[in-house]
């Protein structure tokens, strides 16, 4: 009795809800999704092959352009990997500046995301407000590094620009205003009835599934599991930073929104603490051109989750093998688990739930999860 009750709804590669090209083929029965086949890799530019063909110095430009929103995370990870291979240790001031920049980037990425989720749910006013307030952070980036989105502040051996005391005051003033706005989003997200109706119990990911499918970042923390690279495997100067890892046990898109909004407030606290305890001294050391043979794994907590770079050098000026595994790639099995059995109208909001950054995982792929073709009610 093979009646074709399900119709196939293509989603992408060009779709208003998705800021990036990827293609999901949904099998829809009535209004419920029964199967999803992602066909991704549209953003596959072959960065790993290009990295092997270019020197370490040139590689940092490629690592920066893996993803436009989490550039500092990728360059931080790249720089730490190569510095570990070279055996040089970075001056403490550079570590602090790297930490401040990556927390600023978390602010800009999370407020961008809060706006996008509101836009997916049709709540355009919050989208406009969140993006308008985010401009303050982008202006800060422009003053600090000269670039609004791509900053090129991390380099092998430290950072390229210093944070002067008068610049630190400007950061504090901006954060004063931004903290009020971040708390405002937290209040709106928790109280706005129509937005709650669209995010509560949508895209549920139980803690057991989250752990089994190795979700990372806010998607994992929204299912009640305390997984944060800044706490478990501290890099830069995070071991001296007092901050708490925010989790929520509501396991749905509402939980992810709440976790990200609270993390914004947390990041402001980290930046303030770091600005007070900014150590004196030089902020960059010379890095040799050739790297002695060796291999290293470096991990960073990008706004979307754990970002891992594996580097293997063979003594020349070019890496023998360089692997980038971006956070969104780790969240895809969890995403496909959430996407089965939901309403068609919830697809964009669940997709936006894990804050996908498909240009990060340019080697993204997933097998057909049609295993659940039964009536997954």
């Amino acid at each position, binding site marked *: 009795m093979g009646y074709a009750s399900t119709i196939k709804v293509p989603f992408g590669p060009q779709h208003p809800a998705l800021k990036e090209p990827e293609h999901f083929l949904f099998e829809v029965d009535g209004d419920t999704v029964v199967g999803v086949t992602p066909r991704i890799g549209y*953003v*596959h530019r*072959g960065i790993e092959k*290009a990295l092997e063909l270019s020197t370490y110095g040139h590689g940092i430009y490629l690592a920066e352009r893996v993803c436009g929103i989490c550039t500092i995370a990728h360059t931080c990870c790249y720089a730490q990997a190569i510095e570990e291979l070279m055996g040089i240790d970075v001056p403490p001031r550079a570590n602090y500046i790297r930490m401040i920049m990556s927390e600023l980037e978390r602010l800009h990425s999370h407020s961008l995301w809060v706006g996008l989720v509101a836009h997916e749910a049709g709540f355009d006013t919050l989208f406009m407000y969140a993006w*308008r307030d985010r401009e303050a952070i982008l202006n800060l980036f422009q003053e600090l590094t000269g670039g609004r989105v791509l900053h090129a502040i991390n380099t092998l051996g430290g950072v390229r620009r210093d944070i002067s005391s008068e610049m630190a005051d400007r950061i504090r003033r901006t954060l004063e205003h931004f903290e009020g706005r971040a708390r405002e989003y937290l209040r709106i997200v928790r109280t706005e009835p129509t937005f709650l109706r669209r995010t509560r119990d949508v895209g549920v990911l139980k803690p057991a599934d989250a752990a089994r499918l190795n979700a990372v970042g806010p998607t994992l923390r929204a299912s009640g599991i305390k997984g944060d690279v800044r706490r478990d495997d501290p890099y830069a100067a995070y071991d001296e930073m007092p901050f708490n890892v925010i989790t929520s046990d509501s396991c749905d898109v509402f939980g992810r929104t709440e976790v990200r909004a609270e993390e914004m407030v947390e990041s402001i606290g980290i930046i303030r603490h770091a600005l007070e305890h900014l150590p004196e001294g030089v902020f960059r050391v010379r890095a040799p051109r050739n790297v002695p043979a060796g291999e290293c794994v470096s991990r960073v907590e990008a706004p979307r989750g754990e970002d891992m770079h594996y580097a293997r050098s063979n003594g020349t000026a070019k890496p023998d093998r360089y692997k980038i595994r971006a956070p969104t790639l780790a969240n895809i099995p969890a995403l496909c688990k959430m996407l089965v059995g939901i309403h068609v109208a919830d697809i964009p909001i669940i997709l936006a739930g894990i804050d996908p950054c498909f*240009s990060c995982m340019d080697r993204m792929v997933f097998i057909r999860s049609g295993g659940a073709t039964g009536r997954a009610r």
Partner: protein
Amino acid sequence: MAVSWARSGSPWLIHFNTGGCNGCDIEFVAAITPVYDVERFGIKLQGSPRHADILAVTGPVTVQIAHSLKRVYDQMPSPKFVVALGTCAVSGAPFRSCYCVHGGVDSVVPVDVYVPGCPPKPEAMIDGIAKLLQKIRGTEG
């Protein structure tokens, strides 16, 4: 005369990311938000290619997406224009040497305005679109 005033007065845009690092995309979307607000020029972001006049493309065209870019371009009703946003769209930029990248947008669809920059600031994008509007007004004015 009225038609060219109408065409340059209400340019509807559709955005397509062909494999870029989405630095240009968030700058393009930032142009729509209150601080830059392109709706002052009557610009609206449309969902379906059928409703749009201007196709804003970001990102170096990867081999797989070239086909979809061509299809979206064909679906748009004429008169249609293409704006290539960002150095990737203009020439493929750092990924030009990669084995999987097609190079700039003009290797797939005819482009009217190139906006260089990695990523170009929202002001630069608005300036690019303003030049395109002058071009529309100019040719038929």
